Each structure stands twice: as C-alpha cells, then as structure tokens.
C-alpha cells in the first residue's frame, strides 16, 4: 500500500527538487544555521563551501533527516521532510556518504554493501540476510562496476582507504537515493583518491537527473565536478554562484574573514 503510493511518486516527472525554506538550527548556546533559504533543481551538483563551524555538516544532516530544524521547512518533491517515514521512504530520496565512509569494519564487505537495502527489506529479511545474503547479485554488480568484485567476502577492516571508499559508494548504489549528500567526501584523501571519489559521485548522479550536494573546500574540485556553489559563514549564506563563476578572490574572502592570525594576536576569544 505504502509502496504503490511511493511508486506513483517515482513515476511522476523528475521533480525531485529540494527546497530549503528559512531553515534555522541551533545547539545550546550556538547558532549553527541562521535562517537560510535556497532551492536545488534536479541534476544540480551543489558544493557547500565555508570555514570550520560555518554550518555545512548541520545543513547536510538536516537534509538527511538526521537533525530536525528549529524553524522553517525542508521539502523534497514538495513534501515536508518531517512528515516522511525515516526508513523506507526517506532512504529512497536521500542518501549520504560520510567523511570516513563509516562502514561497519567487522562485517564482510558484502553486508556493508547490502546495508544499502535495509530501508527496503523487512526486518526478518534483514536478519536472515546476515546468514543467507539476499539480492547478492546487486552487491556483486556494484562491486564489479567499481573494480573490487574480488573483495566481497573480505572483512571490511582489511581494505585500504581507497577500497573502503568504493564500498561506501557501492552501498549508496544499492540504496539508489535521488539526492546524494556528501560531507567532506575528500577531506582525508590524497589528491588522486580525491579526484576518484569525486568522479564516482558524479558518475552516480550524472545523466540520471539525480542531485549531489557535497561540502567541499577545493576550488579546483568545485569547478571541475560541481555546477553550483554556496558559501556559508557562521551559519549564513555568503554567496550562491554557478561553479564556473567561482574565483579565488571570492573563496579567499569566505575563508579569510574567519581566519585566526596568531601574528596579529587576534586569536578570537570563544
């Protein structure tokens, strides 16, 4: 029943678009996000830039349904995020790659990849799959596409950083959400792996009308892989530009304003 309703939504014209309506979020004693508003069209690849503490993670967690806004509204496909059921429904719309990929290191790779299906499987099916893996072919196809088909039965903690990154991507491929969020997906990677990660993420969304929203600091990567960039500073939107228009000067201003210069003795009092 819930399923047929959902299929109707999927069959509708590719109207996945994200509307952030005057969303604010604070933590005790901290204003993490001033009311900000923007919308994202299907197929856009949006970069979030900004210094540490500017609210990038907070914004992504709000979009992922991991946090609830204090004020304002987040809508996807015209529907309020707060009204969606967290598992099944939301997981089809929004998925996330985390900074350290956040795999369950003690499980075999296969189960980490199949975890992308947990939103769709029944509880009994999820439990049994740990013994008799379900939809194994999906996981194997994804791993093969990423070039690590031979790692399926390995313990995840044994994999290199680059391989783990692909396992996280494979999990996302099985989840197949229409909006992909990525929180600093390249921050701990060497330049080659960083480019590979961006390539994989862009491959996931390109041509399928899916949307990517990623926090990124490198102007080079933003220009190369994104279509649009929003600059955040202390929870406020500083600029919203096509990625092609991003200049070093704009980015320097975004980060410089908050830079702490020890030589000036201007280490801010917290």
């Amino acid at each position, binding site marked *: 029943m819930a399923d047929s309703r959902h299929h109707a939504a999927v069959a509708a014209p590719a109207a996945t678009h994200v509307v952030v309506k005057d969303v604010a979020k604070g933590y005790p004693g901290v204003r993490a996000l001033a009311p900000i508003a923007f919308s994202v069209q299907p197929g856009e690849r949006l970069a979030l830039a900004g210094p540490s503490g500017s609210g990038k993670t907070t914004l992504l967690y709000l979009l*992922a*349904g*991991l946090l609830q806004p204090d004020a304002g509204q987040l809508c996807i496909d015209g529907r309020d995020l707060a009204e969606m059921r*967290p*598992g*099944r429904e*939301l*997981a*089809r719309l*929004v*998925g*996330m790659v*985390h900074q*350290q*990929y*956040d*795999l*369950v*290191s*003690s*499980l075999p790779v296969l*189960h980490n990849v199949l*975890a*992308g299906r*947990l*939103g*769709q*499987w029944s*509880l009994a099916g*999820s*439990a049994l799959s*740990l013994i008799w893996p379900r939809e194994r072919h999906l996981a194997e196809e994804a791993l093969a596409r990423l070039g690590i088909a031979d790692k399926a039965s390995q*313990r995840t903690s044994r994999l290199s950083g680059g391989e783990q990154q692909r396992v*996280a991507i494979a*999990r996302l491929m099985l*989840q197949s959400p229409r909006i992909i*969020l990525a929180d600093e997906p390249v921050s701990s990677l060497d330049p080659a792996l960083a480019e590979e990660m961006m390539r994989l993420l862009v491959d996931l969304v390109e041509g399928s009308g899916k949307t990517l929203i990623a926090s990124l600091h490198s102007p080079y990567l933003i220009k190369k892989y994104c279509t649009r960039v929003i600059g955040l500073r202390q929870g406020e939107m500083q600029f919203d530009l096509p990625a092609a228009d991003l200049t070093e000067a704009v980015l320097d201003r975004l980060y410089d304003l908050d830079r702490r210069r020890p030589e000036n003795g201007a280490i801010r009092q917290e």
Partner: protein
Amino acid sequence: MDWGGSLIHSGGGGAARTFFLALFPPDLSPEFLRISLAATWPTLAYAVAGMTVAVLIGLPLGILASGTVISVPRLRWPVALASRFSLGGMRAIHELVWAVLFVAAFGLSPLVAVLALGIPYGGILGRIYSELLHDVPPEPLRALRTAGASPVRQLLYGRIPLALPDMVGYTFYRFECAIRSAAIMSFVGIQGLGYQLQLSLNDLLFRQVWTLLLFMLVLVVLVDQWSSLVRRKLAS
C-alpha cells in the same frame, strides 16, 4: 591487640607442613584419575549449562537495557530501566545464595546448579552487554540510519557486529569464573570437583587434593585456549 593466638592456632604449623610435604607427588593412580575425571564432568557441565542460561538471559535483557532498539521514546526508557533493574536484582544475589534458595525450594538437583549459576551470571552479562552495545562508535550507525535502517536493523548490522568481539571475550572470561563457581557449589551439596575436594580434605588426603586442583587448573587453561582461538577467528 593480641592477634597471635587466634590467627595461627597451635597445631597449625604442623598441619601446614604436612600439607605442603604431602603435595608431592600428586595422586596420579589410575583409580583416582578416574574419580577426578568423573568429578570434573559435572563441574564443566554445570558451568556450560549455566553460561548458556546466562547468555539467554543476558542478551535480550542487555539489548533492552541498552536503550537502543525501541524507537518509541515513551517506551524506550521505562523498558530500559525495568531491564536494568531486573538485571541488577539477579546479580545482587551471590550464586551460592541462589543455590541455597533453590535447594530449599527444589531439593538437590542438577537444575539447581544450572539456575544458581545462570541467574547471577545472566545479570552480569546483561549489564556488560548493554554497555558494550550502547558504546559502539556512532558514525557507522549514523551511516546505516541514512541508508534507511531502523534501530533494530542498526542493532543487527551495526551494534552487534561492532561489539561482538568484546562481548565474546567477556563471556569467555565469565565462563572461567563460572567453572570456579560451579566447583564451589559443593558447599550446598552439589556434585563436582569441589565436592570431591571436600571429601579428600576431610580425609586429609592431600595428594588427592593436589590432583583435583590440577584438574581445575587444566580446565581453566583449556577454556582460556578455546577463548583465544574463537577470538582470533572473530578478528580475522
């Protein structure tokens, strides 16, 4: 204060010397080895059965007590508190006291030993399980959550796999303790190494005592070896 007379009574020195001299050699006659083996069996069996009961009690209650699986907030904490409270009650009472109570209720039977071990050990295991399950790193769980996994699925795919090596390690450690506890169940008249030990001590057959202690030692060492084998397998 004058401790002298009361701590070491006059004949004590002589008895101690006899005891230590009599340690060597232990009684390794086939006949007594057979008796020792026969006494080892119930001790091991009670320990294994008791630990099985303990895991069956500790795992479900530990999961509920961790407050991580019930998604309805109104239910979560009452259930967690009730589980914690019952686990606390089970381990507040020593296994020998449980044994005395059960002997009074059911008379001497193997079931008494198993329950008397299983209940307090279940209380201990449940407490530790709940803490281990609660304290796994949050990042992998958050990732499972954004993949659409409910709290129970997060338990199956995140919390349990992440906590399992520690849970197994601690269970084996408790298994060693259970062997010792099973042995001293003889104080309420239950068969096993402890019972045989008491008989030999009463008859001042110290060489037999030494043999029985050796059996105890071997048992604990074997469990320890088994434990490291299992943990190595889990870690690979």
